[in-house]
């Protein structure tokens, strides 16, 4: 029973949106919309589970005075502070302190992490573009054309001559390759979804065999 009921539920909940995709009747679409709403509710219920785990593991770290335990204190303090002002500010989180923390802590920290990408892209590109063989050389040339064709300094150096070539590379070979992978991946996903809906694939259910 521990597996049968979830499998039946999966089948029903998995088949229904497929059914609703073809049936526009209001009765059917209303139920489908409710299913979407339930998904949001279930996800919201799962969040405290994660938060509890996070808090417990960090409290344990503090208790045991593990290496870097002070960072756990910062984490829990930050979590409590943001949550407190978030709740105080109503459902859109408008408390002035919340907004201040968002602007002055969350925002710069996130921007910093994202901007690290520039460095990582450069080092990864350097490794990929090293012209050690024909394929890498083709990759290198295409990359130079695309990059120069899309930035102002490239326009200045080449008088805009690389822009149409860059656009061609993006809209033709790039889009064609992307589509090939998209179609393959979409079919793979569809096949996987059918396996899940029909109960052939059960790994996600974790423990508890009949």
């Amino acid at each position: 029973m521990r597996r049968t009921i979830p499998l039946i539920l999966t089948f029903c909940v998995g088949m229904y949106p497929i059914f609703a995709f073809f049936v526009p009747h209001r009765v059917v679409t209303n139920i489908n919309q409710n299913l979407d709403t339930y998904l949001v509710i279930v996800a919201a219920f799962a969040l405290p589970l994660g938060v509890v785990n996070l808090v417990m593991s960090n409290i344990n770290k503090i208790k045991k005075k593990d290496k870097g335990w002070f960072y756990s204190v910062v984490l829990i303090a930050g979590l409590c502070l943001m949550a407190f002002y978030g709740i105080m500010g109503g459902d859109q989180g408008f408390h002035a302190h919340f907004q201040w923390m968002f602007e002055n802590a969350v925002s710069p920290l996130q921007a910093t992490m994202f901007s690290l990408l520039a460095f990582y892209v450069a080092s990864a590109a350097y490794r990929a573009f090293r012209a050690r063989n024909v394929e890498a050389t083709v990759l290198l040339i295409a990359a130079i054309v695309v990059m120069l064709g899309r930035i102002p300094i490239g326009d200045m150096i080449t008088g805009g001559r690389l822009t149409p070539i860059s656009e061609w590379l993006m809209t033709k070979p790039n889009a064609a390759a992307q589509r090939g992978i998209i179609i393959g991946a979409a079919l793979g996903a569809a096949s996987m979804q059918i396996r899940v809906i029909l109960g052939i694939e059960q790994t996600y259910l974790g423990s508890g065999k009949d």
Partner: protein
Amino acid sequence: MRTSCLVIISIVLVLAAGGAWSQGMSGFPATELRAVDTPSDGGGSIDLEWEGEGLQFVLIMRATSPGGEFETIGDAIASDGSYTDMRLDDQTDYYYRLAYPAGEDTLLGAVAGPAQSKTNWFRSYRKNALVLTALMFILVISYVTQARKGKRLFIRRISGLSAIDEAVGRATEMGRKILYIPGILSLSEIQTIASLSILQHVSKLTAVYGTDIEVPNKDPLVFSAARETVKQAYMEAGRPDQFKEEMVTYLTYDQFAYAASVTAKMVRERPATNFLIGSFFAESLILAETGQSIGAIQIAGTADIPQLPFFVTACDYTLLGEELYAASAYLSKEPVLLGSIKAQDVVKAIIMVTVGAGIVILAFGSNIVRDVLFTR
């Protein structure tokens, strides 16, 4: 009752006659107005069609009785010949007429209707999608049935999946942990489900070899599913005592805070093997490059196309798109699962042939294949 019927009929006739006269007037750009329920929709709308010429604007007017007050609900270009009225209650009679402002006068067209909007039972423009969906289901079921009967199905070697044993073995030899990152999207993303299948296989190996594994999570639903998956794998491997809840942890719901935490873990704890399998976005390269810099063997897998080049560059093995979805079948070698892969390949072959034929036919000037395949 009889009198009121006669009055209504008279009004309709007079209006119709007036409309005919109006249309007969020179310069009225749209005639033969028809109002019908919009087909294949969820209700609440009526399609209007007329014969029209020229670029003049016509006003669209609506009333709930033929003799009632007509209000302007929109406008259209006469030659467009159609308009969809979408603000309606179902099962209510609506009457329409067109009006054309000609100088100071407004010429009125004939009244069309009554028309009622209604909610429909089938989106006929999705017939092709229905056929393909049904075909996919039928093929999966038939190949799975064949597989159950013992038919052998071949699946090509996928090097990324074949390398899993080697990667786990390396971590065991080095006495270091394995980091398994299941992507950053929730369980509603099918890539995450595929990732959990691989996680189960990896966890079984770590249970058998006694290697340490850690699964940091961004999504709370994935966190609880991943914990169950690892726990189950340790039980199936006969080592339930070795399972520790700390193996599967929750970090944060924030994408970059998650990336920061995981990369910090990589630098501090220097895992021997990193699995980056699931749905990734901008954090993919931050994770993969950090893993590369610490010299970990890295196996990645995603169907998020923009991240594939990053993984190919920074990781030792990458599962590309559909290879990720084939993983559970490949790793388990269960005939039933292999059957569904076979069905997927057949559909892919059908699509390839159709697209090829479509290109050739389109080159000869016919849109027939494109029209058959088009859906929304």
